[in-house]
């Protein structure tokens, strides 16, 4: 069960909200207890095999956090470093080696996640690292046993377990403190329901049908079939749109559930495909991970390199920035997994970001950049994303090479290839009405709609005025305010119903980021 599963929407979520809103005035402890019980139940239902591992890590990290706040000087740093290394080791063991479940030859449990990797392990581990890293400087109050429920909830709050967003402890501490002090307002429930509905629609009504276009073409490439240029470009472009709506949809679902129980989770997306440079892109895409890497990897690296290289202040800053960017983004790739395609994605992203940094240095941007240059910058960002997306989607380098060959027109075969005529053939009324993930014809049309939405429509933060959330950009002066009215309520209900119907049409696809 994941957060967009009809069973979750129809049963789990209403039960949770019912219990939570019944007990919301019983004090902070009761609110935390309800959410903690719900999170534990959710994890148990979604991935029972790994629940003991997750519970063990929560206890271990809490003990480490207590020790960190009570120690001082070198011993504090030693405990913190040891704890961080332990977490990284667990992550590495699962990501870069066979999982214990695989080693034991066990069959996957009857959950949706059919791999040996625990559900959302990467997101969970990063939160544990953040907890240790934020306590280590010694600014936090000593942690005591009474803080355990809050920390446990921070660690396993279920909407974030699937695919983030990653909550830095320093931000989360404020939010959880507010949750303990006061119950959520009904307006937050209403707002959260609408954000949740938009997330469901993004995932089930847009991302999944587009997968019906992408999957067969990539499967053909993986099976050694040459792709025509049209097929390769359709697959590469559609995947970019699918990935955005899938991941941002899951993030919106988490945001919505958080709001419904009075928690402001971090913003993860802010129209990334509207970015005008690589730097801006990383301010808009998977913001919570980028903030994490900037805080805990990029900034320390930048400071270290700047101290240790020679040259003028500017030269040292440029070198430090380039080195920190390359290492951080390589780590970004490694974080996704040991697959060569992920590693290359990170490296390529780092090189492109450095190229943009150097270009900015040589041709500083001003407010009056010409339209041609703006267009050039946007096109190169999008092109870079499409090309990196191919690597990201391909399971192997040979599959990626086949798709790149198709993109370059080297695939051979008929101009349209054998797949597109079939896609077009079922793009008629049949395909349009059958909005299932397998309906490739509908997927093509929805990909076109998704493209328009990604490039031209306001994002969730803008629509719902979520600028007060951690990680959100500064609120523009002219930003509209979200209002509660009958039309919006009806639209929310319509989106939920449509998404549920789509979810019930067939097998649910796992969200792309749940595997990380």
């Amino acid at each position, binding site marked *: 069960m994941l957060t967009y599963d009809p069973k979750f929407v129809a049963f789990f979520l209403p039960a949770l909200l019912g219990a939570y809103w019944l007990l919301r005035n019983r004090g902070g402890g009761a609110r935390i207890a309800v959410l903690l019980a719900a999170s534990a139940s959710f994890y148990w239902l979604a991935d029972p095999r790994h629940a003991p591992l997750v519970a063990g890590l929560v206890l271990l990290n809490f003990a480490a956090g207590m020790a960190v706040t009570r120690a001082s000087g070198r011993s504090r740093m030693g405990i913190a470093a040891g704890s961080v290394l332990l977490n990284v080791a667990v992550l590495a063991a699962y990501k870069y080696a066979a999982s214990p479940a695989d080693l034991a030859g066990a069959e996957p449990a009857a959950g949706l996640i059919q791999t040996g990797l625990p559900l959302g392990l990467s997101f969970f581990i990063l939160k544990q690292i953040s907890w240790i890293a934020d306590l280590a400087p010694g600014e936090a109050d000593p942690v005591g046993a009474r803080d355990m429920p809050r920390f446990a909830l921070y660690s396993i709050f279920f909407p974030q377990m699937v695919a983030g967003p990653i909550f830095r402890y320093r931000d989360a501490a404020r939010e959880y403190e507010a949750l303990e002090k006061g119950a959520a307002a009904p307006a937050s429930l209403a707002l959260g329901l609408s954000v949740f509905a938009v997330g469901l629609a993004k995932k089930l009504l847009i991302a999944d049908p587009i997968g019906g276009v992408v999957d067969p073409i990539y499967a053909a490439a993986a099976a050694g079939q040459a792709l025509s240029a049209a097929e390769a470009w359709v697959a590469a472009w559609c995947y970019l749109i699918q990935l955005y709506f899938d991941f941002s949809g899951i993030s919106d679902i988490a945001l919505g559930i958080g709001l419904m129980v009075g928690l402001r989770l971090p913003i993860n997306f802010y129209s990334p495909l509207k970015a005008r440079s690589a730097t801006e892109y990383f301010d808009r895409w998977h913001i919570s991970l980028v903030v994490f890497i900037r805080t805990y990897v990029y900034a320390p690296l930048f400071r270290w390199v700047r101290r240790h290289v020679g040259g003028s202040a500017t030269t040292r800053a440029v070198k430090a920035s380039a080195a920190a960017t390359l290492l951080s983004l390589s780590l970004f790739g490694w974080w996704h997994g040991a697959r060569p395609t992920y590693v290359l994605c990170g490296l390529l992203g780092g090189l492109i970001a450095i190229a943009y940094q150097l270009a900015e240095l040589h041709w500083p941007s001003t407010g009056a950049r010409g339209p041609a240059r703006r267009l050039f910058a946007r096109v190169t960002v999008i092109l870079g994303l499409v090309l990196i997306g191919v690597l990201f989607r391909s399971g192997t380098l040979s599959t990626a090479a086949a798709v790149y060959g198709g993109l370059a027109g080297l695939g051979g075969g008929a101009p349209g290839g054998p797949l597109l005529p*079939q896609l077009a053939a079922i793009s008629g009324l049949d395909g349009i009405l059958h909005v299932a993930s397998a309906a490739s014809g509908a997927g093509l049309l929805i990909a076109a709609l998704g493209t328009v939405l990604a490039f031209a429509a306001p994002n969730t933060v803008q629509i719902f005025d979520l600028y007060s959330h951690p990680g959100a950009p500064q609120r523009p002066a002219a930003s509209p305010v979200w209002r509660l009215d009958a039309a919006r309520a009806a639209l929310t209900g319509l989106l939920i119903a449509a998404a549920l119907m789509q979810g019930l049409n067939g097998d649910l696809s796992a969200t792309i980021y749940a595997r990380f």
Partner: protein
Amino acid sequence: MRAPAYVALAVATAAAILGAVAALNLAMDPYSVGLGRWTRLRSAAHDDVADRVPDAGTAARAQAVARSSAPVLLLGTSRTQAGFRTDPGRIFNAGQSAATMDDVLRVAEAAAARPVPPAAILIELPQALALPPVRRRLVTRDWPGPTDRLLATSTTHVSLHLLGHASRGRSVVPARDDFFLDVVVPAALGRAGEGRAIAPTLPFVALGGAPRDHLPEALARLVRLCVRTGATILLYEPPLDPARLRSGADREAARARVATYRLYLRRVAQGGAGCPIALLDFSGLPGSLRIPEAEPAGAWIYRDHFRPAVGDILLRRMAVDDLLRS
């Protein structure tokens, strides 16, 4: 607008829409025949990656089989789907989760319509021949009631249904019998019984009818197919997993199933159809063909599903290599 009213209106809207679609589904497609991923993109190039592109639809399988040139076709339920890892160019595994006899026949007939039909069709005995008593009573009254599949309220049902009517013969959507137009409307007009609600090809008949209502026709269709194509047809009862072998009820059910098929096969043969169909029983029950490799618990995935290593043995025991050579 106040927040509680907003939430209530949103939830009521969702519930009303879902309820309306469910009601429409109930009227239009009470047996959820339209549920299935029939538009899964298929081409010969993709057939060999079919396992990596999950697909629950009979129609999609029929299309895939029709495009395949494999000389041997494997049909059956998820046991077949999961239990045989074969080269799809030689042995095409079209196993389908929870397949009924009707699903199996539909795919087999699609294969038989190929320019070069398969030389052999291996069919796992469909195991679901009876529904729970309550539902059986509903079915015998031509009204299955709201089943779990019906709760899958989807635009699929309605749109498939309407399109099927709108484009008989021209659409990829097969036109289907219409409970609403054939039963509900005539009943409302006082002309009940004039329309036949469900054609005998619909899955619920296979599931819900007694064997005598369904098996003679199903097996006769198989024999006709065999005569038409010259294909060798082997029906087989797959091995039972160790837990089922220990259960008296399960053993009895398997024994009854095999006996029932044998009975009706003999009747079909006595009718002079002229095409013998063999039935091989690998259940592990006394008198069956024993597969020792299927006896350890490690040979099974979940319950009921044997691993491909057992599937390989089964293929050898059914002499598939000889069939391929011939």
